[in-house]
C-alpha cells in the first residue's frame, strides 16, 4: 500500500465529494418523489454511484416497468462507463491484480475517471482508492439527506435543489459541445426530439424511461453513422 498516493487521491476526492453531496441531495428528492425510503435511497447511491443512471432507474421504478427494461436502461445510460473502463484499462499496469481491478471498477464515475486519467503514467491504484473513500460517502449520504430532508424543506428550496442534477448534466455536456460542433448539434437535436416526444400523440404515452432509452439509442446511432468519431483517445 502506498500511503502518500492514498492521501493524494483522498485530497483530490474531497472537491468531488462536495459536488456529489449537493447533487445527490437533489437525487434524494427524486427518490422521495418515487416513494423510496431513506435507506433505499442510501443503498441505491451506495451501490450504483451513477447520477444519470440512478435518475433513469428511479423513473423506471416509479412506473414499475419490470427488471428487463431496467437492465436495458442501465446498459444504455451507463454505456459510457464501458468506454471509460476500456480507456482506464490501458492506464493500469498489466500486472495489476484482479482484486484491484474489481475494486476500482465499482466507482468508475465521470469525475473519478477524470482525475484518474489525468495521472501521469500507470495509475497507482491507491490513488484511485483514496479518491473513492472521499467520493462514495459524499454521494450516498447526500442522497440519504435528500430523502430525509426533502419534506422538511419549503417548496421553493425543493424546486431549487431539483434542478441541480440537471445543472450538473449541462456542465458535463456543454463543454464537450463547445469543443466539438457535431456534439453541440446533436445536443440541440436531443433537446428538440425529447421535447417533441413528450408532446406528440402515441409517443407521449410511453414512460419517461422508455422515451429516454429509445431516443438515446436512435440519436446516438444516427450520430455514429453520420459522423463517425475519429479521435483515438476515449473521451470522458
Amino acid at each position, binding site marked *: 500500500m502506498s500511503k502518500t498516493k492514498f492521501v493524494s487521491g483522498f485530497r483530490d476526492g474531497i472537491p468531488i465529494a462536495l459536488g456529489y453531496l449537493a447533487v445527490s441531495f437533489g437525487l434524494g428528492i427524486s427518490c422521495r418523489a418515487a416513494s423510496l425510503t431513506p435507506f433505499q435511497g442510501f443503498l441505491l447511491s451506495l451501490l450504483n454511484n451513477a447520477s*444519470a443512471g440512478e435518475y433513469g432507474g428511479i423513473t423506471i421504478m416509479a412506473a414499475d416497468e419490470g427488471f428487463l427494461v431496467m437492465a436495458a436502461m442501465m446498459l444504455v445510460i451507463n454505456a459510457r462507463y464501458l468506454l471509460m473502463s476500456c480507456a482506464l484499462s490501458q492506464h493500469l499496469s498489466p500486472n495489476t491484480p484482479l482484486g484491484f481491478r474489481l475494486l476500482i471498477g465499482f466507482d468508475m464515475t465521470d469525475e473519478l475517471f477524470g482525475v484518474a486519467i489525468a495521472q501521469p503514467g500507470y495509475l497507482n491504484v491507491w490513488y484511485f482508492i483514496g479518491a473513492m473513500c472521499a467520493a462514495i460517502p459524499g454521494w450516498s449520504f447526500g442522497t440519504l439527506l435528500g430523502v430525509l430532508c426533502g419534506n422538511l424543506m419549503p417548496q421553493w*428550496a425543493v424546486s*431549487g435543489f431539483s434542478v441541480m442534477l440537471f445543472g450538473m448534466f449541462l456542465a458535463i455536456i456543454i463543454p464537450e459541445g463547445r469543443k466539438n460542433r457535431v456534439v453541440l448539434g446533436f445536443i440541440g437535436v436531443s433537446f428538440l426530439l425529447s421535447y417533441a416526444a413528450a408532446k406528440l400523440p402515441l409517443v407521449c404515452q410511453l414512460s419517461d424511461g422508455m422515451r429516454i432509452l429509445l431516443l438515446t439509442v436512435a440519436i446516438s446511432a444516427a450520430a455514429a453513422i453520420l459522423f463517425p468519431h475519429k479521435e483515438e483517445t476515449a473521451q470522458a
Partner: protein
Amino acid sequence: MKTYLYIAVMALTTYAIRVLPLTLIRKPIRSTFLRSFLYYVPYVTLAVMTFPAITTATQSPAAGAAAMVVGILCAWFGLGLLPVSLLCCGTVILLEFFLV
C-alpha cells in the same frame, strides 16, 4: 421488496458494465461505429434527460427554462459542475420568488 430487487438489478448491470472491460478487455475497441456510438451516448442521453424534464421539476416551467439557459451559458464559459449546479438552483429560487 420489489424496490430492493430493482436496486439489485441496477447495481449488478452497472457494475458489470464498469468492471468487465477493466478485467477482460486489454485491447482498445476497434469498431468505429461502436466507438462513435459510445462516444455520443453520454451527451445525447444527458441532453434528452434534461429537457423538457427541467421545466417540469420546478413549480414554474419558466423558472426551469431560465435555469437551463443559465446552466448552458455558465457551462459554455467554463464553470465546473458545482458552480453550474448552484447557479441553476439559485436562478430557480430567485425567479419562483416572483413567479409563484
